[in-house]
């Protein structure tokens, strides 16, 4: 895959354009700079339920990027505490609806279900993997933080972050190519079966 042999990451401005998404391929290494929103389990549920009721969302998702994260509180003198990605599959139930609403990119960790991949292909969206468990490293790329919705949810509130050179890998591209499947093939050794 292209990204595995490309040594230099692709630098992209947020919010992404549909053309940016169309160019990216599973396996590409990227550095993202610009604004994005955070949302995880509880915020997704609220966004989804608001849409079901026909209400307007507290923030427009059109063309935006959502980072699945619940950051640690910021120690004095810092913008944010540790801020690595959470498991994306818990958001699978809600993600297709948000993609329909215009969401163009998601950042998280781990595999996505077929409904999410299908919605991504239909709407030209992309899914990035950030490095799970690298909360301290990722926190360094966050320049600004503001709570913009659901403050009662604490770490699960929707924050607007401005990031600079946020490191990620294209895990699933807008054609549905999936690094969680293709990336593993060369390393599967069936002779290792013990039962």
């Amino acid at each position, binding site marked *: 895959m292209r990204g595995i*042999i490309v040594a230099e990451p692709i630098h992209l401005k947020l919010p992404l354009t549909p053309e940016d998404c169309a160019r990216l391929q599973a396996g590409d290494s990227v550095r993202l700079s610009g604004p994005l929103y955070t949302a995880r389990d509880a915020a997704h549920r609220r966004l989804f339920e608001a849409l079901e009721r026909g209400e307007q969302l507290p923030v427009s998702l059109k063309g935006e990027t959502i980072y699945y994260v619940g950051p*640690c509180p*910021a120690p004095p003198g810092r913008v944010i505490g*540790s801020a690595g990605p959470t*498991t994306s599959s818990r958001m699978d139930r809600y993600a297709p609806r948000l993609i329909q609403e215009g969401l163009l990119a998601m950042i998280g960790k*781990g595999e996505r279900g077929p409904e999410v991949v299908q919605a991504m292909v239909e709407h030209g969206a992309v899914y990035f993997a950030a490095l799970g468990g690298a*909360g301290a490293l990722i926190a360094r790329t966050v320049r600004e933080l503001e709570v913009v919705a659901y403050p009662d949810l604490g770490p699960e509130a929707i924050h607007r972050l401005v990031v600079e050179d946020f490191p990620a890998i294209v895990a699933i591209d807008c054609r549905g190519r999936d690094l969680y499947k293709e990336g593993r093939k060369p390393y599967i050794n069936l002779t290792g079966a013990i039962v």
Partner: protein
Amino acid sequence: MREIAAEEITRVVAELCQEANFYLGEDLIAALKDGLAQELSPVGQECLRCLLDNAELAREERMPVCQDTGMAVVFADLGQEAMVVGADFNQAIEEGVRRGYREGYLRKSVVNDPLDRVNTGDNTPPVVHLRIVPGDRLTLTVAPKGFGSENMSALKMLTPAQGVEGVKRFILDTVLQAGGNPCPPVVVGVGIGGTMEMAAILAKRALLRPVGSSHANPFYAGMERELLAAINQSGIGPQGLGGRITALGVNIETYPTHIAGLPVAVNISCHVTRHRSRTL
């Protein structure tokens, strides 16, 4: 009776909550370095390098290694000749967790009720496992457990006829099904035997054993090595993006069980398998 002040318990639990989250154990650092030397996938190598950098940065800056600073699991081994004075023992531990998570700027990840789900705001209550042991000391271990990996854990009541093959199959299936979700490379804690809840607690305690150590019984030590080798041929790799290093260790703990049963619990833990202990 030797007296142990409840306030001392609170102070130590607060420190351990922070140290466990800031300082990744030397056993894990060594295992990540070994993994990097063995990893063939360029993406996998880059992941492992970043995780080592992240651990170093966290240590230097006293930042949590991972933002999921966990639900606090506290193991307390209380000597039968020691007496806790000054306050309620369980409240002393709870206050330590409250203080540690506040003072360490750790994330508050606990909700008051599994279905009502309102954040308690101070990461309490913890889960406490108390044992009464000989002597007059108190050993406290704080093991913050993140739920990306906790969610991928499983327990099954096998039958004796399913035997060793059934046990290995269940452990492997659980790890393979978890895929990239639990932040591989993982540490796999396994409890075999006892009753249903005993197997789960054994699996949790297995995660306290240093990565790279072996079960005292050569049979189980061999099973740990065999399972680790098999898991690392799954192709899942670091972060699930493909590679050799899917697990850093498999730790098995066992206990006698009933003539009719073969309980097996698999507690999956991420590369941030945290625990710190102190004896008072």
